[in-house]
């Protein structure tokens, strides 16, 4: 039960199980006989609520479970041993899992995130015990270096190297910060990891602190993730009770504790110097680097900042060894990466794959292809700092280097799939609206540059595009990239540049023909009813928010262009494809 499962009714289903099991006289809370567990997100959010029944060591997984279905599952399956076949997961559930390799997510969805014993039972905190009792900080860093782990927040800086630099700084005070300010729209792996396995992140942080010599840690987490915050708080308390945090950890001369800092809603605070300013209680404006935070970070002291997913990898690397981890992935991008696969895809959810997997396998094998069997157009990776990858590049490998080569980035791991009904100019405009609003305003190229870029895009999508606008966009985009102070401005133009690179014809259609080929840009389209196809079912009339559709039952309907607000509701409601875009 992550945020997704709860929204789909996970709590209600669980309550229903508890209630009905009790009424049947089965003691659900006694672990020896039968137990109910709450687990974190297990990835396939599209099929929520998922329920596992483990009977005599045989696991059956059910999908789309609603409270009313609980009774039959209990009676047929649990009491009489006959699984309810028609509700069980189908082939595509297994296909979704087949090509995945789970490291960070290996325990997510299996353990109870609110119970430390559940994590301890699967080897949790063994890595920490091993590190503090048998290894020096230097050995620990060496393992992380050898594993090839790179920062999973976006930039991909080698984690071991970062720790090493910080460990060599001499200072009476050092900090380690976990960056859980997952601001990229379309990414939710950090939320899911904290909701599903908070102790792995905490354990990774403690090992990091031991390695670099930090005695204070902060988790900077978005306030928009209330469930993650709550579970993290619980987990921290449990870790303290078990002496994994606090003074003399595990009886050794090693003190470390972690505080939670709630973000206040600013995307730029994901940038490390902005994040530091925010923890210090100031406006979260980035500053020039160098000096890098490993030398001068929080309150001017050496500070390591790692992303949630990066830290959650650490305990598994220590437990299984550097060779094991680096056996996954490619030469330069080792290990696995978690992606949030969303948009117009059948199996949307959270996936973990080895670096270097072909994009096509993610989209078609794991993702199950495009929703409603429409044509694939592009996949947007890396959020507002990333780019789009078109259909003819589907065979590229997904790793840091390959994606950079085609003008995109791995980023934090968002993958939004777009189909033929998505307008690429509109997508570029969407991201620029975002970066422009989130620009902190400190440096001029970003503050004014993104504004001007957005204005040009608005002009183009509004039907007022001019000859030369594409070249102007390219020019300005490159200037903003080259001269902005921080990562936000340096990458903000990427969505524009990559959509121009692969979908220039769409820009041209907007500017010269004043048409939006995908039929998205409102000012460039009108909705009409194709008389030959209309059955007069009235579906469009019912959904129209502005009363623009008229017509009698079973007769051809009409749209009044003066009343139409071009929302597209009728287009989606029509089952006979009789709404056309003109």
């Amino acid at each position, binding site marked *: 039960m992550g*945020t*997704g499962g709860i*929204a*789909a009714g996970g709590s209600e289903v669980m309550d229903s199980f508890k209630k009905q099991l009790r009424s049947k006289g089965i003691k659900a809370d006694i672990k020896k006989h039968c137990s109910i567990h709450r687990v974190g997100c297990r990835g396939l*959010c*599209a099929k*929520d609520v998922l329920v596992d029944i483990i009977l005599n060591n045989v696991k059956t997984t059910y999908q789309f479970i609603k409270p009313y279905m609980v009774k039959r599952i209990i009676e047929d399956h649990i009491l009489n041993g006959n699984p309810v076949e028609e509700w069980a997961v189908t082939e595509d559930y297994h296909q979704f899992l087949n090509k995945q390799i789970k490291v960070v997510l290996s325990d997510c969805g299996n353990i109870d995130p609110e119970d430390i014993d559940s994590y301890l039972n699967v080897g949790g905190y063994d890595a920490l015990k091993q590190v503090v009792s048998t290894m020096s900080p230097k050995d620990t860093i060496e393992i992380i270096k050898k594993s090839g782990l790179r920062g999973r927040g976006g930039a991909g800086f080698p984690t071991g190297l970062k720790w090493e630099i910080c460990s060599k700084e001499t200072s009476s005070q050092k900090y380690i910060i976990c960056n859980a300010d*997952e*601001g*990229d*729209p*379309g*990414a*939710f792996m*950090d*939320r*899911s990891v904290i909701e599903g396995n908070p102790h792995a992140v905490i354990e990774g942080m403690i090992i990091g602190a031991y390695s670099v010599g930090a005695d204070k840690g902060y988790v900077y987490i978005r*306030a*928009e*993730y*209330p469930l993650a915050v709550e579970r993290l708080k619980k987990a921290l308390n449990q870790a303290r009770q078990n002496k994994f945090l606090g003074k003399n950890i595990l009886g050794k001369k090693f003190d470390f504790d972690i505080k939670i*800092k*709630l*973000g*206040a*809603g*600013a*995307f730029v605070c994901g940038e490390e110097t902005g994040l530091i300013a*925010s923890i*210090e*209680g*100031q*406006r*979260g*404006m980035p500053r020039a680097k160098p000096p890098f935070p490993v030398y001068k970070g929080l309150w001017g002291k050496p500070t390591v900042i790692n992303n949630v997913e990066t830290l959650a990898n650490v305990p598994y690397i220590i437990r299984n060894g550097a060779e094991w981890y680096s056996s996954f992935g490619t030469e330069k991008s080792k290990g696995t990466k978690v992606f*949030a*696969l*969303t*948009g*117009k895809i059948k199996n*949307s*959810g*959270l996936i973990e794959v080895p670096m270097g997997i072909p994009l096509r396998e993610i989209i078609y094998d794991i993702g199950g292809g495009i929703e409603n069997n429409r044509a694939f157009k592009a996949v*947007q990776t890396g959020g507002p700092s990333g780019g789009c990858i078109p259909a003819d590049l589907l065979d590229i490998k997904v790793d840091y280097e390959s994606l950079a080569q085609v003008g995109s980035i791995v980023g934090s791991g*968002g993958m*939004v799939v*777009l189909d033929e009904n*998505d307008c690429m100019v509109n*997508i570029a405009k*969407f*991201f620029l609206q*975002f970066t422009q609003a989130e620009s*902190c305003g400190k440096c001029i190229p970003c503050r004014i540059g993104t504004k001007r870029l957005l204005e040009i895009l608005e002009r183009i999508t509004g039907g007022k595009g001019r000859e030369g606008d594409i070249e102007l966009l390219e020019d300005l985009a490159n200037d903003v990239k080259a001269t902005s102070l921080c990562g936000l401005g340096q990458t903000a133009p990427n969505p524009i540049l990559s959509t121009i690179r692969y979908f220039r014809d769409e820009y041209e259609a907007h500017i010269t023909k004043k048409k939006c080929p995908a039929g998205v840009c409102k000012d460039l389209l009108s909705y009409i009813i194709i008389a030959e196809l209309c059955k007069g079912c009235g579906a469009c009339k019912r*959904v129209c*928010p502005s009363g623009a559709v008229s017509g009698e039952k079973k007769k051809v309907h009409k749209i009044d262009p003066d009343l139409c*607000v071009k*929302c*597209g*509701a009728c287009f*989606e409601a029509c089952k006979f494809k009789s709404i056309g875009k003109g």
Partner: protein
Amino acid sequence: MEKTLEKLYVDYENNEGNIISLLQDIQNEFGYIPEDAVNWFSVKLDIPASRFFGIVTFYAQFHLAPRGKNIITTCCGTACHVKGSERLLNGLVKELNLQDGESTTSDREFTLEKVNCVGACSIAPVVIINKKIHSKVSADNLMKEIRKLKDKEVEK
């Protein structure tokens, strides 16, 4: 108000003197950041009010005006965007009869807000009504929910 502020002052002293945490506490107490509260702390802590306002206006989370009884938050992340969140937003503006740029209805029953991403992208589009996440929202269902809330108010 004075009493509450005194209490917050004590928390502030214990909390490494962090202005952002202080403002978060103020907002938790009052539902928004009242100007009087800022001025009170400005005098008490000898920090210019401009520094407070600089922070308040920097972060999206802070509100300088009172908000409605019901808070509706539309997610405008990428996945929600391609799944039609803009249409939901336009529908809400119309249903709540919000004038240009307003976010709270004149009777202070409803506040409509946007959020960049709530990280529930696989169940997009997402709308949060009074802290409860609604997934795969359609314009139809959403308006029904809003009307239910409106009827509740009328009953009272």
